[in-house]
């Protein structure tokens, strides 16, 4: 990626990227019973990371976020598969999920579901795939 000296882009990015990150996590957690979920949350996170790449360039962002995005794909997939296969341990059909109500400090009484773990797998896979595709095309000359 070519380095530009885009003051406006950089200043707004430092603000907007964090809003995007926060919103993507909100979407990810909302997905259980409202619009949102792992897929859309993952896309939003990738958008935030991409914005940082556009503003600060390949070198700087790779230093801040030293993540091998290609590795995120199998990690995400294994999280998703393991949660679906986990139902075998309890003698339940493949892909079964369960939930319960727990008291958490600060948040109060909340519903926690194992479906979120499956969604986490989807989230990681989507971030991994999107970033791999975009960075591969961007670094190709």
């Amino acid at each position, binding site marked *: 990626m070519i380095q530009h000296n885009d003051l406006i882009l950089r200043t707004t990015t430092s603000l907007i990227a964090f809003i995007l990150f926060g919103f993507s996590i909100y979407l990810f957690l909302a997905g259980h019973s409202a619009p949102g979920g792992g897929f859309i949350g993952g896309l939003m996170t990738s958008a935030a990371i991409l914005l940082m790449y556009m503003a600060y360039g390949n070198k700087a962002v790779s230093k801040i976020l030293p993540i091998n995005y290609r590795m995120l794909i199998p990690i995400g*997939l294994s999280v998703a598969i393991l949660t679906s296969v986990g139902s075998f341990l309890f003698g339940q059909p*493949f892909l079964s999920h369960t939930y319960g109500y727990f008291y958490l400090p600060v948040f109060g009484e909340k519903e926690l579901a194992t479906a979120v773990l499956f969604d986490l797998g989807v989230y990681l896979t989507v971030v991994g795939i999107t970033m791999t595709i975009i960075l591969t095309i961007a670094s190709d000359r």
Partner: protein
Amino acid sequence: MSNLAVLPIVMPLIAGVLLAFFHNKLPLVRTLAKVLTIINFLVVLYVFYYVINNGSVVLETGGWIAPYGIILVADIFSITLVLTTNIIALATVFYAPLTLSKKQEEFYFYSFFFLLITGVSGAFITGDLFNLFVFFEVLLMASYGLIVLGGERVQLRESIKYVLINLFSSMLFVTTVAFLYSVVGTVNMAQIAERVGEVEQKGVLTTIAILLFFVFGTKAALFPLYYWLPKPYTVPNPVVSALFGALLTKVGIYSIIRIFTLIFVYQTTFTHDLFLWIAVFTLIFGVIGALSTNNIKLIIAYNIIPAVGFMLLGVGILNETAVSGTVYYLVHDMLIKAALFLLIGAIVHLTGTTDLKKMGGLIHHYPLLGWMLFLAALILAGIPPFSGFIGKLLLLQGALLNGEILVVIIGLLSSLLILFSVMKIFIRAFWGEENKEIQPNRKMANKLTIPAIFLLFFSVLLGVGAELFYPGVKNISAYLLDPEIYIQSVLKE
């Protein structure tokens, strides 16, 4: 409820993901791939044994009951095909390290390989029409990865064609499923069958049936939709060609068999008579293609087409003898096509050319390879007592029962020409003057032949032990022709 039905899908999926973690540690990946394939084969063997003894295993995923959730049905037909798929996987995983370059193996070959097995097994086992589409996509995604592996110019050119035609037929598939849903209000295959039966397939339902046939006909390479098949199947590595040739078109023909013995069986004078003619044309044009070329990979790729024609013949005739012929031929063809592609791949790897005119006298250097190719040719063409003969015998017997004399004559003639097209490879490549320029590498040749011998062993067993397998195949045929059993096992009313 039993999780056994999902094991043939989940096991290769886990294997594929696991191997993606250390894709560049080759010795480890190779060993793990072999071990995991063997484990997977044993698990499938157990499920097969269980289904044979206890009847269909039906799994309602996530605990959602029958017409609402996604249903997986491991019945005698689908589990037989899954077992055959795993036999082929076993042979190819041992063949792969010999012909693939290091770079290709490092570029996630084994992950794509296992995902392909996942998709194929899933397509066989699912009991939900939309889910069938999903598994088609899984296997197609894996095949897109495999076909460009290596990234040569000719590969990229052919894969564009392959991707475009498959994208088009997938789009049509989804649209057709939506049509069908708007008419019958369900995507569960058992419930579709029940509801189509209630109205005796009146009105627009036959149109939808033909649209579905068009979709699966594209995947299965039937006349006139086969034109995309031969070339893309010859450009990738022989292992990939073997997997494609043995599995991909067979998933298409499996779907036709399933849909047109379970759901759309009420307007046979229209649909199934059409199949008969399409089958005949597929036979004729496929054989002409196979005779038209001197490229040995292309000869074998063209030979996929008449084989699919034979299988469709049984669906068109739709009596018990003919359908058991189709089932027999399906299993036989999966094994023999994989074996042939592996043998041809060995020849190409050893001589460095695909042109038949540049070969000759190979029998002096590679007697084992030569005689195995000879045996494979006999099995493919259906010389008694091999498995191709028994499949064709049942099919033609079924055709005679319905008085389709013309079909029988064309079937026999095309078998003769198939024999000629494959024997041509044996005669031109193995007989004649030996080419002094080729440096013989007998050790490598033997290594390359062993996986093919493994497949030929099962193929010969299927033919010589026909007495043993025939009752089972007849059972499957009777099961397929009575949709009630499937509907009952899924909906449990």
